[in-house]
């Protein structure tokens, strides 16, 4: 019976699927490893399952700048009224998904693919306060944490208060990149506001936006200015990891996946460890989006379905890249052996992640915090 059913579905699928050789264009923000992921793993897998089609990928660079370039690309084509856009799938940071949805660039495809049901986490529905439900599928979830050198930091600080005390005793040993040049510094500042801002973090993360709250932050930013004077400023995400690696600072905020891939590539000593301080530091997903005017929409949906299937999430996202999966963990865990699964949680346990893994504040608060930092803490 089962075999008959499978055969029927296969026949149906073959009959319905148009057999045409198409080229799928994927544009992805993020580091080089995002491009490598598609070139070395996902692309060949997809091409094997869909013979005759090829996948090509373009990387736009790390950080917000990379996602901004993708947004601008869409904007240019929208304004030029292009009939068929040149991108089929894009991978962008959470911050940019909201504006894209509001501008009407995207296709609501999540309900059309079966893996769409495998995500129940809130950040697949809301992106910094904008409803993006149905338009995005998370590729992976990332988290920031404080990386430290156990040789120099015997008792790693477990909360922001402990960090402030530690930094006072060890001047210039803490390093972060401010808010320009890298999001690890930004997430540190967000965590600082969660800790000392006087506003309930849940309100910051979920809204509603209340202009009056911004007045509560003056003390927090005065403290941050003082703290920064005692700290070392680093030139960006890579800069923090650089200085950590060279022993010029002992502790600093990093992206967990960037930390692990630097260790794997031999640019960071293997002794360094991670800790997430209370009340928490934010992380963010990166999302798969499909432009509404893309040239190969069905193929694009198949691609995203493959990328968010439990097997690929286990093998590709968790095992190869040490990212936290985009779909719910309970679907991914059975596909992995225990050792690989536990590697994700060497320094940060699942409980820690649940307690201290926060999201970024909603967009209006996000912007207000950044501007307040520029005005009060950076001058």
């Amino acid at each position: 019976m089962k075999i008959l059913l499978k055969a029927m579905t296969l026949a149906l699928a073959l009959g319905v699927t148009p057999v045409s050789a198409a080229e799928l264009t994927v544009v992805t923000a993020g580091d080089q490893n995002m491009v490598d992921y598609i070139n070395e793993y996902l692309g060949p897998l997809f091409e094997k399952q869909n013979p005759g089609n090829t996948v090509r990928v373009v990387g736009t660079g790390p950080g917000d700048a990379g996602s901004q370039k993708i947004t601008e690309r869409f904007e240019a084509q929208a304004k030029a009224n292009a009939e068929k856009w040149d991108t089929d799938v894009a991978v962008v940071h959470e911050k940019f998904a909201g504006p894209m949805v509001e501008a009407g660039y995207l296709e609501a495809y999540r309900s059309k693919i079966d893996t769409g049901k495998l995500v129940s986490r809130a950040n697949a529905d809301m992106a910094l306060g904008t409803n993006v439900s149905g338009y995005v599928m998370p590729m992976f979830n990332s988290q920031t944490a404080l990386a430290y050198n156990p040789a120099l930091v015997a008792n790693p600080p477990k909360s922001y208060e402990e960090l402030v005390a530690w930094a006072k005793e060890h001047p210039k040993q803490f390093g972060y990149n401010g808010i320009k040049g890298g999001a690890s510094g930004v997430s540190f500042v967000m965590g600082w506001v969660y800790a000392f801002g006087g506003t309930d973090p849940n309100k910051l993360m979920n809204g509603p936006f209340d202009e009056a709250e911004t007045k509560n932050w003056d003390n927090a930013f005065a403290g941050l200015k003082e703290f920064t004077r005692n700290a070392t400023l680093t030139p960006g995400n890579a800069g923090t990891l650089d200085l950590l690696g060279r022993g010029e600072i002992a502790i600093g905020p990093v992206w967990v996946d960037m930390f692990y891939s630097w260790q794997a590539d031999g640019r960071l000593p293997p002794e360094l460890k991670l800790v997430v301080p209370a009340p928490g530091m934010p992380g963010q997903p990166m999302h798969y989006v499909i432009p509404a005017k893309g040239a190969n929409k069905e193929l694009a949906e198949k691609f995203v379905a493959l990328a968010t299937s439990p097997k690929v999430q286990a093998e590709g996202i968790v095992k190869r890249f040490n990212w936290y999966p985009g779909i719910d963990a309970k679907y991914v865990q059975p596909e992995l052996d225990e050792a690989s699964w536990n590697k994700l949680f060497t320094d940060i346990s699942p409980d820690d992640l649940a307690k201290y893994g926060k999201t970024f504040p909603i967009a209006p608060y996000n912007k207000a915090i950044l501007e307040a930092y520029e005005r009060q803490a950076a001058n």
Partner: protein
Amino acid sequence: MSKRLLGLVLVLPALAVIALLFLFPLGISIVGAFESDRRYGLGNFEKAFALYSQDVIFTMAIVGFSTLVIGTFSVAIAGYLTLGENPRAVAILRWLYRWPMFIPFIVVGQVLRTFLAKNGLMNNILIGASILTPIQASGFLDWRGIVIAFVWKQTPFVTLLLAGAMASLDRGTIEAARNLGASRLRILIEIVMPQVATTLVVGLILSFVTMMSVLSVPLMINAQSPTMITADIAFRINAYGDYGVANALGLISLGVTACVAWIYLRQTMKERS
């Protein structure tokens, strides 16, 4: 055909390329600079000055200082290439000075980031050669790093132009001065430089313009505030999506550069007429 008309016709293709492919999109951007909160006005400029005036001054100071240093080094190197008396030393110098020119700015930024750091390659070599102790080692990852990056990359460019101009000078004047007993430094300053001053200024202005619009170097080397205008523009666009202030900052940058170039052009016009 009158000379003027012919002149215009010859210049037109080049101008047309710039006008259509850059000035037109730029115009749209500039209009955006004056647009804030759906009204037209100077709101973006006010914000730019409120938040970034320190950075504007910093940028002008850094780029100006770098230009001066580049000028000094280029004159020294080109001068030696022209007036140097040991053929082997001159040949070595000629081969040596050009290398930094081929390295893109992004690579310069990245390479210097690990070279100039407190525990970077430079300090490691100096410590290894016992010229420096670990305590004395300091990192250059601030405005000094930016200046070093600019000088490193742009000096060969200006030197190339300058050496060529010097090589074409009439050796007669130089030799006459030597025979009269003038030192080479004096010849350089009083005889050679006045004749190649125009080339030097062309090279320096082109360098100034290039340095004002480099983004990778300040992002990769300078962590502190103040930082350069380009880094602020990138931040404004990527973090806030705020094209208004970004374009306002761009106009400020353009204004500074245009002033410098205008001064040069006025100078040369005066000389010619």
